């Protein structure tokens, strides 16, 4: 006999135990409390139960089975009673039968041989005239995971699948899924899958729903099978059943629909139209599943369609309504809304208020609401949001308060107009002296400094007062960064940093790295007083530390400082790239996958199913469908993110057959990561050391000879701690510039409305003859800050082309595709498609000749083709290329005259204002204008995507169609290209 382990004792056991046996007989037959069954805890009860189970009296038997089930529930092992319980199976009492079945489901696996005893009863029950009993038998049989039993299950199941009663059929449909889980092969061999498919056309909606659920589950474990075989006809059937079945059935059907990819936008629209009524269902899961279908199919609708706008409007109210559901559902809804807001911010942009936190919301709801508030924050609603956040920062829950403080910082970074108010709010919070509030505030203020350099440094004094109270690494590191960054403004910066140095080895790595960098910065700014300090920290980092990151960074600084302090200054005190406003956005491809999983656990965890589901299930990656290839929609700027998915699975197999100069392409990643913005600051700092040697120095301008004037044009991917070397001078160089040059800027030429950026006309890059019938022509454009390669692919061959992919060779400015090439439909003979490919500038760098040369490989199902093209460098001109006047002056003076080049632009008939306007459209900014003897002098600045500044002076003489332009740049190589741009822009 097995040991009876008593896991639990019920409350009040003793009292009941006393009365239990005394009253047992009296209780028989009466519908008294069942809780007494939980109370027997006597030794030898198994023995007693055995006797009762074998009793002649039906009632006694039933009572005994109940006791057995109760014991089973609390975790006692009652498997020893198997034969005795099975003996009770043959009964016409349905309640008793169900109890015995429950027992069987639990223990059949441990007693497979004896379970066979039950088979006959099951088979007999499957023939019972009562449909409830037939269904019960087939339902239970499917739950008994014993091979020998499943063999006997097949025949009854086959009958039940064709039963006249829908109740039996709907139960049998689920049973197929059960059987498949036990023995997939058997299900296939017996042809159950086909029968199941037939049930999708059943007349009863519930049978349809269960068949859909079962098929979907089975299909999940056969990712490549075409099991569900969704086609317009079957979809129509599902949509009809959708109106008629239970709420649960509607969920099964909608979830299944979401896996379908409509053939074109018309089909997509008609499905959307039939799904939208579900948005008014009382069941939140029905609503969310409908939202999933709509979000997915919307991708295919052209944006200019009226219906598209209508649909967007229809989505908001039901999402808001979900927030009045029970808190657990609110949580699920909020996690999903978080995704929806990232994918389509326009849906909820006016609904900020509903995400305001209520005082008695559960904490998990509060935290999620806060997240969404930040995502929806904009100039229009920032005042309200800030007022709310300030309230939240005084709440009790520590996590919530921290997040609220952090949110204030993020608002400052996101909405520039609010930055000042945010900073003063943060200062108020620091005054509360609540420890974790102060620390959190300091962490976010550091980010604000990064976003708005030289603007809020007046608060540093207040921050320094709180130095002692900081005990969290992140806050300490942030404070140290601030001290190092602004060392020249803090009188006792050396003392402050020295105080941290005492316990150097007890600090966390984050703090150590930051301290090292900060002291080096300090040294470079105040070399005379801090030599000792810097030596101390370098030796601590390189000799006494066993952390390789720290040692490496220490050595790099050491060498840099000992070989060339001026270069060290250029590197360490470099201008840092501004941090982007959204650092915690979900990566676009993951976001797309999660949108396909709206309502499910994946959308709650914000992880793909493969991250938390074992086995073959959930491995299948879902993608959003792409808009059907009508021309105008591909031009929309968001197409890069909107339809980044559905890259052909075969893409990585690209293998150039020719071993020519572009063999290098093989090493490039076909789908470069599409992360937006620079990496978050913390990781950036830790990897700074690596990038310094790898990416920065040997990059484009690596052959620069003159150390001081030389601009280390590092790749923007360089660590945040180092960043791109500046052309902008440190603030200390803002010395007043005397003479005429100084005040001429006061004349300030009016800058008019910018016009669109210059886009060169498309040219043929790859003639069809050279590429087995594929002709590619294209051009480059910069739209809304995104560089795009606009291609026209024409199929001049006789066969269909598919599986397009694109790669670039290394190039001077690190251009790389920011997403896969969006050619989704096969390109038929004589068909043409326009594609626009967003580009990033974070790819690998190699200097090209000419500088703006780009080597491209395009692959399709036929072959790989190579061509090269030249891009106008103006497309790399960034939007924030307008230099401060003072900085411009200083920089102009600072760049050696050797770096200046002069060009003539002939036959240009614009006046100076029109020219300035036109140039601004291409991000060439006029900083000042002066007129000397009828000659207009325009001073302009340009910033390239890799941080190189180009300064220009354009001379325009009234009546003379020839302009003179002087360009000054620390990297004179680019001048020629820049000049070409001037010419192209002005003459176009």
């Amino acid at each position, binding site marked *: 006999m097995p040991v009876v382990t008593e896991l639990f004792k019920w409350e009040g056991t003793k009292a009941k135990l006393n009365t239990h046996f005394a009253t047992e007989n009296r209780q028989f037959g009466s519908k008294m409390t069942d809780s007494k069954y939980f109370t027997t805890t006597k030794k030898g009860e198994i023995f007693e139960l055995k006797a009762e189970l074998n009793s002649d009296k039906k009632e006694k038997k039933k009572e005994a089975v109940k006791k057995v089930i109760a014991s089973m529930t609390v975790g006692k092992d009652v498997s020893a009673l198997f034969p005795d319980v099975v003996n009770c199976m043959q009964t016409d009492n349905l309640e008793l039968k169900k109890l015995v079945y429950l027992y069987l489901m639990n223990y059949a696996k441990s007693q497979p041989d004896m379970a066979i005893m039950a088979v006959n009863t099951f088979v007999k029950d499957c023939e019972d005239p009562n*449909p409830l009993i037939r269904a019960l038998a087939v339902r239970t049989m499917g739950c008994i995971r014993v091979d020998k039993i499943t063999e006997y299950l097949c025949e009854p199941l086959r009958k039940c699948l064709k039963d006249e009663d829908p109740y039996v059929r709907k139960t049998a449909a689920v049973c197929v899924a059960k059987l498949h889980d036990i023995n997939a092969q058997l299900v296939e061999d017996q042809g159950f899958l086909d029968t199941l498919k037939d049930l999708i056309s059943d007349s009863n909606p519930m049978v349809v729903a269960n068949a859909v659920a079962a098929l979907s589950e089975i299909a999940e474990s056969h990712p490549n099978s075409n099991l569900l075989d969704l086609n317009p006809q079957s979809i129509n059937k599902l949509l009809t059943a959708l109106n008629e079945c239970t709420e649960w059935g509607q*969920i099964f059907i909608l979830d299944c629909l979401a896996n379908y990819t409509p053939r074109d936008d018309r089909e997509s629209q008609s499905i959307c139209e039939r799904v939208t009524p579900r948005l008014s269902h009382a069941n939140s*899961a029905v609503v969310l599943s409908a939202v999933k279908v709509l979000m997915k199919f919307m991708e295919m609708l052209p944006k200019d369609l009226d219906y598209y706008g209508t649909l967007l409007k229809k989505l908001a109210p039901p999402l808001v309504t979900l927030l009045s559901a029970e808190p657990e559902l609110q949580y699920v809804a909020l996690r999903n809304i978080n995704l929806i807001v990232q994918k389509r911010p326009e849906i909820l942009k006016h609904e900020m208020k509903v995400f305001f936190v209520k005082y008695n919301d559960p904490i998990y709801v509060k935290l999620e609401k806060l997240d969404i508030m930040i995502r929806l924050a904009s100039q229009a609603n920032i005042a309200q949001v800030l007022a709310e956040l300030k309230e939240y920062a005084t709440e009790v829950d520590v996590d919530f308060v921290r997040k609220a403080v952090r949110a204030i910082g993020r608002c400052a970074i996101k909405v520039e107009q609010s930055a000042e108010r945010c900073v003063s709010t943060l200062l108020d919070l620091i005054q509360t002296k609540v420890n974790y509030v102060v620390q959190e505030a300091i962490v976010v203020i550091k980010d604000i400094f990064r976003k708005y350099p030289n603007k809020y440094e007046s608060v540093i004094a207040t921050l320094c007062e709180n130095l002692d109270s900081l005990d969290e690494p992140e806050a300490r590191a942030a404070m140290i960064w601030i001290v190092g960054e602004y060392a020249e403004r803090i009188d006792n910066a050396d003392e402050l940093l020295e105080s941290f140095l005492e316990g150097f080895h007890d600090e966390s790595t984050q703090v150590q790295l930051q301290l090292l960098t900060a002291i080096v910065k300090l040294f470079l700014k105040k070399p005379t007083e801090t030599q000792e300090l810097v030596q101390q920290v370098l030796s601590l980092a390189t000799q006494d530390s066993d952390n390789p990151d720290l040692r490496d960074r220490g050595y790099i600084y050491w060498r840099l400082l000992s070989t060339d302090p001026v270069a060290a200054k250029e590197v360490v005190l470099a201008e840092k790239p501004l941090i982007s406003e959204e650092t915690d956005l979900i990566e676009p491809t993951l976001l797309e996958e999660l949108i396909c999983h709206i*309502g*499910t656990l994946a959308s709650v965890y914000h992880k793909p199913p493969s991250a938390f589901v074992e086995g073959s299930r959930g491995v299948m990656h879902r993608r959003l469908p792409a808009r059907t290839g009508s021309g105008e929609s591909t031009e929309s700027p968001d197409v890069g993110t909107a339809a980044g998915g559905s890259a052909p699975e075969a893409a990585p197999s690209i293998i150039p057959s020719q071993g020519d100069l572009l063999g290098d392409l093989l090493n490039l990643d076909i789908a470069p990561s599409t992360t937006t913005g620079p990496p978050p600051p913390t990781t950036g700092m830790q990897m700074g050391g690596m990038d310094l040697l790898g990416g920065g120095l040997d990059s484009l301008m690596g052959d620069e000879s003159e150390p001081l004037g030389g601009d280390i044009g590092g790749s923007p991917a360089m660590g945040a701690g180092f960043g791109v070397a500046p052309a902008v001078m440190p603030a200390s160089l803002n010395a007043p510039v005397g003479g005429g040059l100084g005040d001429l800027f006061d004349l300030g030429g009016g800058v008019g409305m910018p016009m669109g950026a210059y886009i060169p006309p498309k040219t043929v890059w790859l003639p069809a003859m050279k590429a087995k019938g594929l002709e590619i022509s294209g051009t480059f454009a910069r739209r809304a800050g995104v560089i795009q390669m606009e291609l026209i692919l024409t199929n001049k061959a006789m066969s269909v082309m598919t599986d397009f992919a694109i790669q670039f060779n290394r190039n001077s400015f690190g251009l790389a595709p920011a997403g896969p090439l969006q050619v989704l439909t096969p390109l038929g003979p004589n068909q043409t498609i326009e594609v626009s490919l967003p580009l990033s500038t974070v790819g690998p760098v190699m200097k090209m000749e000419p500088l703006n040369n780009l080597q491209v490989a395009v692959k399709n199902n036929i072959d790989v083709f190579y061509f090269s093209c030249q891009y106008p460098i103006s497309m790399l001109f960034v939007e924030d290329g307008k230099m401060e006047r003072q900085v411009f002056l200083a920089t102009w003076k600072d760049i050696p005259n050797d770096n200046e080049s002069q060009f003539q632009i002939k036959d240009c008939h614009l006046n100076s204002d029109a020219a300035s306007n036109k140039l601004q459209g291409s991000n060439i900014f006029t900083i000042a204008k002066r007129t000397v003897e009828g000659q207009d002098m325009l001073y302009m600045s340009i910033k390239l995507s890799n941080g190189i500044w180009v300064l220009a002076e354009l001379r325009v003489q009234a009546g003379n169609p020839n302009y003179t332009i002087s360009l000054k740049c620390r990297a004179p190589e680019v001048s020629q290209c820049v000049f070409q741009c001037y010419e192209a822009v002005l003459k176009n």
Partner: protein
Amino acid sequence: MIGGLFIYNHKGEVLISRVYRDDIGRNAVDAFRVNVIHARQQVRSPVTNIARTSFFHVKRSNIWLAAVTKQNVNAAMVFEFLYKMCDVMTAYFGKISEENIKNNFVLIYELLDEILDFGYPQNSETGALKTFITQTGIKSQSKEEQSQITSQVTGQIGWRREGIKYRRNELFLDVLESVNLLMSPQGQVLSAHVSGRVVMKSYLSGMPECKFGMNDKIVIDKQGKGGATEEAAGKSDLGGSGGGGGGGKQSIAIDDCTFHQCVRLSKFDAERSISFIPPDGECELMRYRTTKDIILPFRVIPLVREVGRTKLEVKVVIKSNFKPSLLAQKIEVRIPTPLNTSGVQVICMKGKAKYKASENAIVWKIKRMAGMKESQISAEIELLPTNDKKKWARPPISMNFEVPFAPSGLKVRYLKVFEPKLNYSDHDVIKWVRYIGRSGIYETRC
């Protein structure tokens, strides 16, 4: 899909455990107890992932219901199912308590077997379930009865059985609204919304076709354009008694509404008409939400003054803002006090006010108050001096009340009943409408 379902008492002892999937082992039961029920920290999420197993839980009084899975299930569905499970249990044996669950464990297992098959939720309408899951065991049914049961459980109208007969056909409509407000200390409305429900209790014979109409702006506007329609004829049907404060408001803008599964959604989507065959007895016909032109029944005007470090003076005025002929009831104003309160003196003009130390609040109760009146309370709060650096967070002043009108302005225009097979007409049905507005979260910051 759902792999298993467990019910625990507050100590974490299992009361019910039903496993549907092979991938859920007995250890899952213990994992949830150890990691969630016995966790030291407050619950941070209703979904917990422990060793690649996900647990969804809801709590009803001190009973935990947990659904377990290892797959990427539809999370919204799991929670909806758990709520439904609670509804079904309540419909069968009343309150969900440890005692009731133990007393009905056989029934619960039977229900779980029926409404969840291999983790897939099945028909869980109590009306249908009660026809064949009874605690008395199924007596030998006739063949007709059996097929009637199965066709109802699987049928299109799963929520209603055929052959219902009443001598008197009667229906009751309750418009229940909860009005929510968050107001700034200066009296600015930060957010306000009404979430309302229309609850219908019907005692109608046969399979009656019902049509429900209210003063929905979209419908009224459409009618204005299209001229008189049949709805206009039914206008006098149920009107009247409704509106309290708003007065002449003709129609209201409904932000969003959801319906009981008996309502034909595609018809609503196309024509915005609400037609259905109701379940017998009580059901929640629709839920709705409005944010525009809400009648705020009360306005709270707070005044808090800190007198030195050890004293607070609080004055709160409430004003009722609806027809003087109507009476608000069960009015309660809750004024939070700091944790270091040592004593409170209260003076109020109306009702009773008490300082409740255990709740850190002054609770002011007024039994009844007519519209367009105003009342005031003032209190002096003595504080213990503390060296606690953290300031008192000043939670908002909250209010509870009940008013006999719908703060959203919603009015029922008609509810028409057609039963072509039986010989009673719409006029024979006795109909009742009632409006109740309650406070939801009705807060004013101070």
